[in-house]
């Protein structure tokens, strides 16, 4: 079971307190009526699904109830960093380089 640190509560808790919410930083289209079918498909269904670092959302469902973002390695399942909603997405390539050092 993963151990996850909620950035709002500031405590490490077991995964069963949290609910996964998929890939992060997928912005809802500003003007939905102007989207083509391809753009809708991209927004709704296409996912990065990387083998490596993934920016993803979690919700502390049985704690503060708030959403936050995390960078996790999908091969080792290790969390690289966890950050609050609204904060900028970290540079994944730089994180990979840092992890290698």
């Amino acid at each position, binding site marked *: 079971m993963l151990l996850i640190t909620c950035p709002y509560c500031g405590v490490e808790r077991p*995964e069963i307190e949290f609910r*996964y919410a998929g890939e992060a930083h997928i912005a809802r289209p500003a003007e939905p009526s102007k989207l083509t079918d391809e753009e*809708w498909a991209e927004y709704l269904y296409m*996912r990065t*699904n990387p083998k490596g670092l*993934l920016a993803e959302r979690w919700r502390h469902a049985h704690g503060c109830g708030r959403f936050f973002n995390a960078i996790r390695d*999908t091969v080792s399942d290790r969390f690289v960093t966890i950050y609050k909603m609204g904060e900028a997405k970290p540079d994944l390539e730089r994180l990979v380089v840092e992890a290698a050092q």
Partner: protein
Amino acid sequence: MSRFNFWELAKNALSAHENWGRQWRAPEPKAEYDVVIIGAGGHGLATAYYLAKEHGVTNVAVLEKGWLGGGNTGRNTTIVRSNYLWEESEGLYDHAMDLWQDLSQELNYNIMYSARGVMMLAHTIHDIQVFKRHVYANRLAGVQNEWLTAEEAKEYCPPLNISKNMRYPVLGAALQRKAGVARHDAVAWGYARGADKYGVDIIQNCAVTGIRRGADGAVEGVETSRGLIRAKRVGVVAAGHTTTVMDMAGVRMPLESYPLQALVSEPVKPCFPCVVMSNTIHAYMSQSDKGELVIGAGTDQYISYSQTGGLQIPAHTIEAICELFPMFRRMRMLRNWGGTVDVTPDRSPIIGKTPVPGLFVNCGWGTGGFKATPGSGHVFAHTLARGEPHPINAPFTLDRFRTGRLIDEAAAAAVAH
């Protein structure tokens, strides 16, 4: 290579079974093939077999990063059934079901298909409505499926607890009698042996590192850890790693890869007559020919390629098993493991063309690909040979996520996502 029959068995028995030949070659890759298939799991090997047998395309290579049948083919819970809801799925899965019936004879390899029946339990009013809808839809389409009361379910599977005092009492069940189990490894080995017999090269320990495309965008071949292999047609059958492979060709996929876990108990004498599944309380189980209880757990909630998952997932499943089958409460579990399953948004597979000319994909089988292995290989071989889909897989396009013609099988996929 010899054909398996009684005389061969008797002859080899005289030499203590030490002189059986290899069942497939380990060839060096050639510079060019007509078709390259990426992934030597059940689906990839079945594709190669039907390409050679039905379409006469024998200049084929099946490339495998690890070893043959070592991914989800060797990790599933061996269940075979076709009780899906929509016409498109009924066509696809029942096509596989037809092929399962005489697959051992067809391949001259005992795949141990056992039509012992698959029973799906209903625990809520909603379950009853959904399963009855499946039963009626299936019967309209000529797919075997029937409704049982709780008492009839108990009669079919005596270990089942139908007490009204359970947290989720059994209210009834949908039963597909000709569904059952097959030996998963034997399916991969049988198809590998069959394809090899027709001259297909199965190349293991050969990871694909790139997909070479020409000036017109069409596929020219694949770059591998064992050098460039040219081919005008490439079929990607890489299950959980499909996104990784398709990224090499610059094609975005509507897939997410999740861990799916399973476990087996210590072996015991035959005591469990069929396959029982329960979507609502997340448990499914059968007994293997070795006597182990084969138990399927759910997916973990997060994307992962780790081929392992959290222990709370199988623990949850075992709690459900103990409630449904009290006689197994003192069974000890021997092993558990995980596979990486590629899940589509509508829980139906993608079998067909991609935006890249010459590149074809067969993926998105999610938590339930094993049952479709023969049918999947059969229609994908047609697609690769003709360049156009077979009528059975025509609806399962990648393009359906653009057009919106989804095939929503969330209720028929036995694992709750």
